[in-house]
């Protein structure tokens, strides 16, 4: 089974966001970067699919700055076979341009499955996986929380509002992974050592400018700290009164 996993280097979820002096981007000073948490599920699932098939290859691909090599090494340390970095400069707000660059690389690679995390926790774009599927004319299932693949087709469960949707699809396919699909493995020391020797190809890439223009990145208005209504259950009637008469939400 030949599998590609598209991953992204993102700021850690505990990052305190500071806006850069251009007023349009994140101030990266002091920010710790990690492998996008949803992509960890994708890498893990790829490894399990290959292990179950008993043969195959897991390629991890990232589009991003030179520093994303480190992110790829993390996935290689988990067990992926080789990495490809589509190395870019600057920030690309238009997910379609990212999808086009990835699709060009994934096209004709003879892949059975292309995995993505359901979204990146930085731009929250939630779109590159299904866009790649459309560009490559492949079926796509997003936010997969349970997956079974056998005999050239798959069954997946995806969470929808108030329930779970069970879908069948044919291979090859694009899938995006949701938390709960699996428990990603931690890279063992042996894996970390081995990852240093695994092939990592760097391809300079220049995505198109796209058709989205960033006007500003701002911090949301600070919430005013409210009031402590009181202590213990005795404060409940006053809370309910405030919610009804002041906040008018009940």
């Amino acid at each position, binding site marked *: 089974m030949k599998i590609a996993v598209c991953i992204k280097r993102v700021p850690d979820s505990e*990052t*305190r*966001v500071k806006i850069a002096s251009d007023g349009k981007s994140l101030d990266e000073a002091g920010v710790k970067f990690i492998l996008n*948490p949803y992509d960890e599920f994708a890498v893990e699932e790829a490894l399990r699919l290959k292990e179950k098939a008993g043969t195959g290859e897991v390629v991890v691909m990232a589009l991003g700055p030179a520093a994303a090599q480190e992110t790829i090494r993390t996935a290689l340390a988990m067990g992926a076979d080789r990495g490809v970095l589509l190395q870019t400069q600057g920030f690309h707000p*238009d*997910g*379609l341009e990212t*999808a086009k660059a990835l699709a060009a690389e994934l096209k004709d690679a003879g892949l059975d499955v292309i995995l993505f995390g359901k979204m990146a*926790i*930085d731009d*929250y*774009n*939630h*779109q590159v996986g*299904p*866009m*790649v599927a*459309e560009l490559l004319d492949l*079926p*796509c299932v*997003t*936010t997969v*929380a349970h997956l079974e693949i056998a005999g050239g087709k798959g*069954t997946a469960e995806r969470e*929808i*509002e*108030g*329930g*779970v*949707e*069970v*879908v*069948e*699809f044919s291979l090859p*396919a694009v899938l995006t992974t949701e*938390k*709960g699909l699996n428990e990603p493995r931690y890279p063992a020391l042996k894996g970390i050592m081995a990852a240093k020797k695994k092939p990592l190809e760097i391809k300079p890439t220049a995505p198109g400018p*796209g*058709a*989205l*223009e*960033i*006007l*500003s*990145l*701002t911090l*949301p208005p600070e*919430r005013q*700290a*409210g009031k*402590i209504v*009181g*202590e*213990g*259950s005795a*404060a409940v009637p006053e809370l309910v009164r405030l*919610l009804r008469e002041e*906040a008018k*939400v*009940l």
Partner: protein
Amino acid sequence: MSNVLAVLEHRDGAIRKVSHEVVTGARRLADALGGGASVDALVLAAGPVRGSDQLGGFGADRVITLTNAAFGSYAPEGYTRAIADRLKTGAYGALVFAASAAGKDLAPRVAARLGRPLVQDITDVRVVSGAVIAIRPVYAGKALLEVRVVGTPAVLSLRPNVFTPVQRPKAGAQQTVALDGSGGRVVVKQIKAAPAGTLDVAEAAIIVSGGRGLKEPANFKVLEELAAAFAGRAAVGASRAVVDAGWRPHADQVGQTGKTVSPTLYVAVGISGAIQHLAGMRTSKVIVAINKDKDAPIFKVADYGIVGDLFEVVPRLTAEIKKLHG
């Protein structure tokens, strides 16, 4: 003319509530585009869908139902083709989806087919000199990104619970068109519904959320009882700590690696308020915190707080809410 096409959703044969928000948002956008732009509401279904005739009341000038035997359930590829073909028939300046489970799956496919960018999960939209400008939360709501869409159509998805439906006394014209063609290679076999009355945290008007302060999984019963007291309007949410501990399903998780929510009322119970959690719920209209630690960060964002033992405070609150609905 730059008309607006609103793509709607249905479940169990009826239009979903989130689609009322989509029509409302589309109407707002059409009015902002000016020039008498009209709103076409698009329903993809196997047959007639209940509630289609109500959509005029939310601002649809025309309701177009495209029928196909495969459209009874969500069919990403069939829907994509039908929407892209429909766009060729009118001068559409914008295309609007819900940022729902189906909308977030479908909108990217449609956008890619059209070769257009997608602005996903927006919380506000306006038009300046004919160009659509949208605002969307990024970094789980720790920052807001404002983008201008260059060219047309603008493809947008609207965050649930943000575009409050506005009713107006008007009926939309109805039109039904039968389509040929397959639904595609992804086929919904079954929907396993959550227990009756369970709301999704992303769409609930009220969320009662619990954290480690609940002490053990069984204690979430007190939150379920509080949620039930809101008579079908509330969902139970959870912090990352309790989801990672396996106490609650991840579908309930609020925060940067869970869902970003904007309910009218968010009640945080036994949640200290880690950055990643605050990021996911800070756009709630009103936040109430119940915590025994008066220095917990959650009180810094809460509109109202009660310092105390949640096992005393929450049952009392449940009783008071029941009285209101009594």
